[in-house]
């Protein structure tokens, strides 16, 4: 299947976080991972808009975990990458490496 459009940067970061977290990727861990990776404080809610979009695009899917007391008796919802998600990540990686290739002296010396 041909990729319609490249995923956005935030989508890329979230997809990578989910991939990295493997079996433990749910809302909170994803947020923490994103914060760790980018060094910026991401808001809980802003993760969900992207997650929702990724779900709709069919790049990720969700599975239910066990109900937990600290979640008000709700189940954890884990997210996992679909093959399409992996393909989308690879596509942006390729683009990234292509557009970065041959660029060496970008660093600014303080």
């Amino acid at each position: 299947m041909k990729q319609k459009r490249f995923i956005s940067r935030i989508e890329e970061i979230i997809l990578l976080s989910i991939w990295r977290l493997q079996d433990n990727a749910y809302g909170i861990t994803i947020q923490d991972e994103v914060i760790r990776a980018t060094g910026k404080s991401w808001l809980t809610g802003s993760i969900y808009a992207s997650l929702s979009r990724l779900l709709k695009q069919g790049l990720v899917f969700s599975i239910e975990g066990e109900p937990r007391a600290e979640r008000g008796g709700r189940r954890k919802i884990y997210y996992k990458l679909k093959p399409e998600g992996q393909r989308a990540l690879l596509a942006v990686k390729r683009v990234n490496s292509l557009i970065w290739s041959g660029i060496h002296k970008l660093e600014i010396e303080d």
Partner: protein
Amino acid sequence: MSNISFPKIAAWILERMIEPNVRYSAAGDFEERFNAIAREKGLLIARLFFWSQIPILFPSFINNQIYWSVEMIKNYFKTTIRNIVKHKVFSFINIFGLAIGMACCIVIILFVREELNFDRYHENANQIYRIASQRIQPSNSKPTTRSHYNIAPNLINDFPEVEDAVRLIKHNGFVVSYGDKRLTINPLYADPSLLEVFTFPLIRGDKKTALQDPNSVVISEELAERIFGAKNPMGEILVIHSQSSKYDLKVTGILKNIPYNSHFTFNFLAPMEHLKSRYENNRYPSCTTYLLLNENVSPEEFEKKIPNFVEKYLEERYASALKYFLQPLTSIHLHSDVALEIGQNSDISNSYKLSAVALVVLLIACFNFMNLSTARSSQRLREVGVRKVVGAGRGQILRQFLGEAIFLSFIALLFAVILASLFLQFFNSYMNRHLTMGFNENLVLYAGLAFLAVIVGFFSGAYPAVFLSSFKPVDVLKKDFKKGTMFGVFVRKGLVVVQFAASLVFIIGTIVVFQQLNFISKKDLGFDKSHIIKIPIYKDRKFTQRSEWIKSELSRNPNILSVIVTVDSPGTYGGNPTQCSPEGSSDDEFVKLNQLMVGEDFFSFFGIDIIDGRDFSKQIASDVDSAIILNETAVKRLGWTDPIGKQIRSDDFDKARTVIGVVKDFHNASLRQEIRPSFYVYMPDWLDCIFLRVRPNNIQETISFLEKRWLEFPTHLVFNYRFLDDYLETSLYKDEKKTSNVFKFASGLAIFIACLGLFGLALFTVNQRTKEIGIRKVLGGNVAGIVFLLSKDFIKLVLAANFLAWPVAYIVMNRWLQDFVYRIRIDIWMFLFSAVIVLVISFLTVSYQTIKAAIANPVDSLRYE
């Protein structure tokens, strides 16, 4: 434990803000996060965190909402456009009908807005009041705009509440000349404060000094251009010819043209000083006075002080007989009902009437929309079904169809604006208005129109939307779904009946108004008004004194049958009510008779028979001061059997007058009044107008003779003539003419829109029954039978409309006719005639479709699909 402290409200809000597909996981995550923070940093911080999520999430929430609604709207839009294009005829009927209805509304909104804004452009509009007076002794008479000449300066002196005051007197038909140019104008004489109290800006000159010099004049831009052309008018000298003298006036200012929405307008403004000697000691109220009250002065309080003031300044005899009261400037145009107005006023009831008419026309158009949308609902049922199956709620369908209606109504609005600018030209010329609808000066109006479009769309779309969204998908998608419910059909028929009933009312109204106007113009007024030319000459006293010479000069022309010079013609003025004491009654016994003045040969010229006694005669000198002629009604009122030789006394006469004759009754006033008991006195020296009876076959020739001859006459007057019959009709029945025009226009539009709707319905029904028609034909049905079958349903509705329309029309038109003493009876033929008109028009409308269907080859119709 954690459940108690968890902020439920915030959680509820947050959940709603998050996309449904991740809502569940987010809710859990939020609560987990909350508990973690509560453990580490305390409950308060956790709560703060939780609540702060709401505003933080808000931007992305809005973003998402818009994204998805835009997607949906795109889809709705697409289906709407497709529907419009696919069903061109129906879309045209809907849009065009609505556009006509809206265009009527736009014109009427413009009209009503101007009516309401009359005189409000003055900066001090809310502080300006007019003093009106009413004679209350010996009996209440109609109030007039006139007040005494001297009260303005006295009011300023006596009352600190009065900041300023202006007196006005308007004269008609003066001639002004500049070099060879002569123009007839209506000068306004006013105090210099006019320019300060009212907001009449000057283009040139200074409003403080422009009228200070008694020999100055301020003219309007438009008049300046007519007189001076491109030349600078400032400082030029104009000669004004008043009745008996002429004087020079120097132009000291140019007025911006007076806005049309003023209850009085003028283009020639001269200082009051010129009229001072004439009016200063007048015992009667003779000028119009406007007061500028200080801010915060209550007009009611001030009004209470006026009676004392009147007593102080007027002779007792007049003070007790007269009442003064205040009229706010802004209410004069619509609410003042007093005599001797300086301009043409209107009445608020006009605005109501016209608004009602416009609303009815718009309503008829909205009904079209409702009818066609519900009738054609079967064509959209599949769409509704599919939408519902893939998850659309009833609310969404409802919104879709409402949105569609509003969209259509906006398209209609675009056309309406174009149509309105066309209508406006007719309206302006019929109603004598100067309404415009330029975009820049009417921004508020256009905003209001957008609102109107939404309302109209909502009103006409609501019922179809509810109707369409109510279907169950399973029923709809089943193939043999029977479209339309009994209720739907009933509503549709009801709406058609109402539409045609409204059209019928308008048509009956048109007929009644037309008949009444016809009746008035044909009615024998008791005098002969045909082929009479009227030339007013009272503005040149020197000329009028040569009446004998004028008569002999003009009667030399063979086309002029007879000439008189007299006060005025019959038919214009009902006379001045005068208290008379007839012979044989005691001193305090009075009879009220209307007094009229007539000149030489008045009765014989107008063909009024003297049925007893004799006419006034120039040879008998005593006729001027001691003779009187009565009309039949007056004789009846006095109860005299042999009136000739009896005497009548009155305060108005210098001595008792003897009855020398009785004339046949004739109509001295308009046909709204009955013939009143009247008497005529002889005034051979009052020579206001020339009346010529001319030969009917050479009228053009006669007029060009008069025009040419006039130039040699010793007068400054411009040749100005009217045909009497024409003049009487236009000046007395102006309002009725307007009503008649409005009715004609409205009934035309109403029936047109209603027929558009009917056409649409017929088209639809015929399409639905194509197969049925084909089968009928195959089985031997003939064309006439099929046409009848198809038309029957519609004709029934139109007939039913009569039952609704007749009583309404009867009540409304009967009320209108009450204004006339001499009126037609509303006859059954008027109803039948309108019924036939509507029936024929609607039958023709429907028959286009039905005949087309009936003559179609059954092979084609049966193969269809």
